Every structure is written in C-alpha cells, then in structure tokens.
C-alpha cells in the first residue's frame, strides 16, 4: 500500500498576485500531511494536519483569511470523516476558533453527534478546552477589501469568488 495525501486550497478564480502563495501553501500542507503518513500515522491524523496548516495560512479562505459574511463577521464550517468506521464530526457557523477542523474532529471523538452549530459549537469548544481567539485575528485586509467591494449595488459575490465556467 502506497500512502497518499491530496490537498486543495479552493476552487475558483485565484488572482495572479496570490497564485504563487496558494501553490506554496498547498505544497507545504501536502508535505506535512504526507510526512505523518510516512511515519505510520493514520489518514485522519494526516488530513487534519494538512487542513490545519491551510487554515493557518492567510492565503486561503478558511480559518485565518476566511471570507466575511454580509455583516463583516467570520462564520466557519468544517467536517472530518474516517473511512474505517464512517465516523464523522462537523461544526457549522462557528466563530472565534482558529482551527475549526480540529474542533470538528473533537465533535467526532467526544460526542454522539455529527454536527454542532453556532453558539452550541462554541460552548462545546470551551468545554473541551479549545481556546477562543479574537475575531480580528481571523480577518485579513484582503478579505475585508473583497467584502467591501461586494457590498456595492449590482455586485455578484458568487461570481467574484468562483469566477466563470473554466
């Protein structure tokens, strides 16, 4: 069996000035996750490690660098799934968490549920010792500029983010 790890940093329209940052970020995440696989760690460990690095990288729209909602806030979603047992954990509309993917894994491992949302997810995070972070630490200048641009009348946020048919 040859271990393998594949990552993505989001589909859509990557501006030229961010292309190299994006490529460097996915390479770094793939290397880190693959190193865990080579050391005998599980596929679950590897995917959570890779996604954690991507969440911490402001070049991507997850964790630090998340896009903003209509009110300029950050609400994040994450999911993990283990193919051995079909166990799964998720969080939705969670705020002030640096690494939602790690919180999703804790939902899988420490609850009988598949998904916790919004304030309930925050309460669970506090209960299991996951620290809250100031929302400002998750917001980049780039995300704020895109949010402001898409507040204009006639803007198309979906097309702005996804581009047109490839």
């Amino acid at each position: 069996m040859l271990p393998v790890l594949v990552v993505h940093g989001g589909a859509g329209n990557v501006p030229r000035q961010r292309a190299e940052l994006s490529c460097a970020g996915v390479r770094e995440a793939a290397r880190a996750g693959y190193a865990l696989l080579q050391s005998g760690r599980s596929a679950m460990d590897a995917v959570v490690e890779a996604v954690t690095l991507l969440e911490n990288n402001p070049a991507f729209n997850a964790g630090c660098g998340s896009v903003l909602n209509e009110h300029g806030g950050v609400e994040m979603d994450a999911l993990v799934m283990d193919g051995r047992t079909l166990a799964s954990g998720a969080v939705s509309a969670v705020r002030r968490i640096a690494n939602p993917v790690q919180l999703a894994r804790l939902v899988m491992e420490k609850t009988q549920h598949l998904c916790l949302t919004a304030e309930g997810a925050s309460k669970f995070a506090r209960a299991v010792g996951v620290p809250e972070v100031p929302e400002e630490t998750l917001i980049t200048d780039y995300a704020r500029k895109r949010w402001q641009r898409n507040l204009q009348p006639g803007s198309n946020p979906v097309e702005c983010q996804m581009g047109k048919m490839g």
Partner: protein
Amino acid sequence: TVGAVAVDSEGNVACATSTGGMLNKMEGRVGDTPCVGCGGYADNLLGAVSPTGHGEAIMKVTLSRLILFYMEQGKTAADASDQALAYMWERVQGLAGVVVVDPRGGWAARFNSLQMAWAAAQNGQLHYGLGKGE
C-alpha cells in the same frame, strides 16, 4: 475552502474540509462543508472526497457521495470526478473542484472552475497545480 484526503499505510481513508464560506453570505448561511456526503465523504470500501466550490450546487447533487457512487460502479477517481462535475454543471450550473483517493492509493484532483490550487504527495514525489492541465 481547503481540504484534504488521504490513504494511510493500512489502507484506511479519511477526508477533512474547512471553509469560511461564500463571500458576503447571509448570517447563518451554511453551505456544503459540514454536511456528510456533500462537503466530504470517506469509506474504506470506496475512497474519500473533499470538494470546494459553490456550496449550494454541491449540496444539490451531494457531490462527494456522487463521485464515490461512480467509483463504486468501476470508474477511476478522475473519471468519476469528471462525470460528477459534469452532472453538476448540467443540472445546476455549479462550479467546483475535488480531491479524491481510492483505497488502493489512486488519486485525482479535478475541477470545472477556472482554477484550483492542489498538491498530492505519494511515493516520495510531490505533484501540484493550479490551472487546467497542470
């Protein structure tokens, strides 16, 4: 959105996906990411998928599970991904991308959007790309 899929040395598969969502979304909007079968799926018998793209479109076709359904029918990870993305485009004009592994270590990174940053590591080699054909 970011995501990863993996097969470990024991043949176990897993997926993870994380996102800030869509630009300027309504407060409380939840997309495909936390939904099993939409924002990811992993089954040792079939493979694992992590998608990215227009969440509402991904949810309408349960994209991750659809890809594994096509793989269950015998298609490769790449062919199953292309077929599912084509179906999503035909039915709901959705743009998305996916990373996929099968339990034997086969993998694919496919998208119908303009671009998707991706990287794959296997057998000591690193592959990566951004645009079509890379």
